[in-house]
């Protein structure tokens, strides 16, 4: 009997506390209502939260970082990425994707594409409300759906953005220095127009 009464006391305590204590879903304290009224209220977004991937461009949409090297497509565990390299009018392959499809019905949000990408071109987004009225077509995202600016990346993950930018700057400096030494060693040649940002 006593055990039952004690249990009932605890539930009664929780019942009363739900009226007395403020609603605090994100608190570490026990007691009070923990519900988050979802569409109106949201928990603060965690910076490291990962959901579906997106492609980054620098500045303008033409300036995609992706060079369509196909590494992410190969490393993707469920194989949900499909890439076709773009070609110019003469059929010469360009360093950017013509088709970059991700099937979000298959994607399992593991983040291995982000880790594997050597060009910092693909990152995991915070956007998770992608539900649609049908199961197949609206969840296959194409290149233009996936493109988002670096500013977006900076907004959702400032820490990672800062670290990556710093690394990229260093790499670029190193590269420039290396190029300079190469150029200094060799005779300066007429420069070819720079290809899109690697």
């Amino acid at each position, binding site marked *: 009997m006593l*055990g039952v009464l004690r*249990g009932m006391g605890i539930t009664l305590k*929780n*019942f009363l506390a*739900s009226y007395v204590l403020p609603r605090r879903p994100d608190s570490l304290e026990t007691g009070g209502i*923990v519900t988050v009224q979802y569409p109106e209220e949201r928990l603060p977004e965690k910076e490291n939260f990962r959901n579906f991937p997106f492609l980054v461009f620098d500045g303008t949409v033409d300036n995609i970082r992706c060079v369509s090297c196909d590494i992410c497509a190969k490393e993707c565990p469920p194989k949900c990425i499909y890439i076709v390299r773009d070609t110019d009018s003469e059929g010469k392959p360009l360093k950017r994707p013509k088709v970059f499809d991700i099937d979000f019905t298959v994607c399992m949000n593991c983040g291995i594409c982000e880790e594997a990408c050597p060009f910092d071109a693909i990152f995991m987004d915070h956007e998770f409300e992608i539900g649609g009225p049908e199961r197949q077509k609206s969840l296959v995202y194409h290149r233009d759906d996936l493109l988002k600016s670096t500013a977006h990346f900076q907004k959702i993950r400032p820490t990672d953005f800062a670290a990556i930018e710093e690394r990229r700057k260093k790499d670029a400096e190193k590269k420039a220095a290396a190029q300079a030494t190469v150029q200094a060693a060799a005779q300066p040649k007429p420069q070819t127009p720079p290809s899109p940002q690697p």
Partner: protein
Amino acid sequence: MDPIFVNSKKALLNLFSAFLPDWTVVLVSIFISIGAIMVLGPFTMMYLTWFERKLLGRIQNRIGPNRVGIFGLLQPIADGVKMLTKEDIVPEGADKAVHLLAPIAIVIPSLLVFSVLPFGRNMTAVNLNIGVLFFLAVSATTTLSIFMGAWASRNKFSLLGGMRSVAQLVSYEVPMVLSVVPVILAAGSLSTVDLVESQGGWNGFKWFVFTPWGFTAFITFYLSGVAECNRTPFDIPEGESEIVAGFHTEYSGMKFALWYMAEFMNVFTVSGLTAVLFLGGWQGAPGLPSWAWFFIKTYALVFVMMWFRGTLPRLRVDQLMGLAWKFLLPLTLVNIFVAGLWFFIPDLRWRVGTAVALLGLTFWALMALNRTALPEKRTYEFAE
């Protein structure tokens, strides 16, 4: 405030008697009472579902329904619309006629028992001189409906649920009836109205619950009542984790809603009867109207039933039977004897002492006899 319902009915009847013959006025009076019950029953059921969901939500640190209407008050109506528009699925092998009849048949007794509940002073629909007996007898027929539904579904889970339900309801009928006996002894009447009236005075201290035998009978009656309503911790006929949904596994749509309606109306009527028998019914401090007292007491008991649901796991079928036959039945029998002694012994101190001693002794003896079924203490080693 107190006679507001009574007076309004009277006014209505006066209005009719002005231009109608007398015998139609009687008919109108009956229809008004029936109409009131027909509205009250389903309305109670609808808002009890809301109340239960809200209460369980609060117990579980949730809010409960709050989207439809303010505080989710329109939720039961939305549910009703949903239930009405849902597809009605009847299994292929089912006995279709009985499958249809069972949920209808279960609502009728649940509504009938409303007629003998005294909702307030002079607010009993039918002042039957065997009111309590009527209540117990009519509510006992729910067993049949439940078994009809279980059998007609032709589903093994339903059948298991039905068999559990019959076993349980029949067993708990016995302590339930026996725990009413002392109250009837004290009041000398089977009419619910007389029962309430015999508990008047002393500002509440003449309620039967304040006597030792009354208290024991209150507990046993209430527990049996909870079992009769198939509520946690005695909800084995439904047993949603074991036998899916028990007897109403194969019901959908409005038929399913009818099962629920019956269950919640039973919750209300059993709580109401408990209040009538032991808590003085509509008797209470004069500040509030009598019907308010009745509803306060009834809803307090309903609250406890829902609180049980929010706290307790359910018993197993054999333990449930054990509780009824090995514990409640002997206790209620002794209780009748104690109540008899109570009226036999004139001195107050002596009769309280005897009653408490006898009941305590019985309780202790029953605990000792049932000790194999009681929990044991465990110790645990801690290894490196």
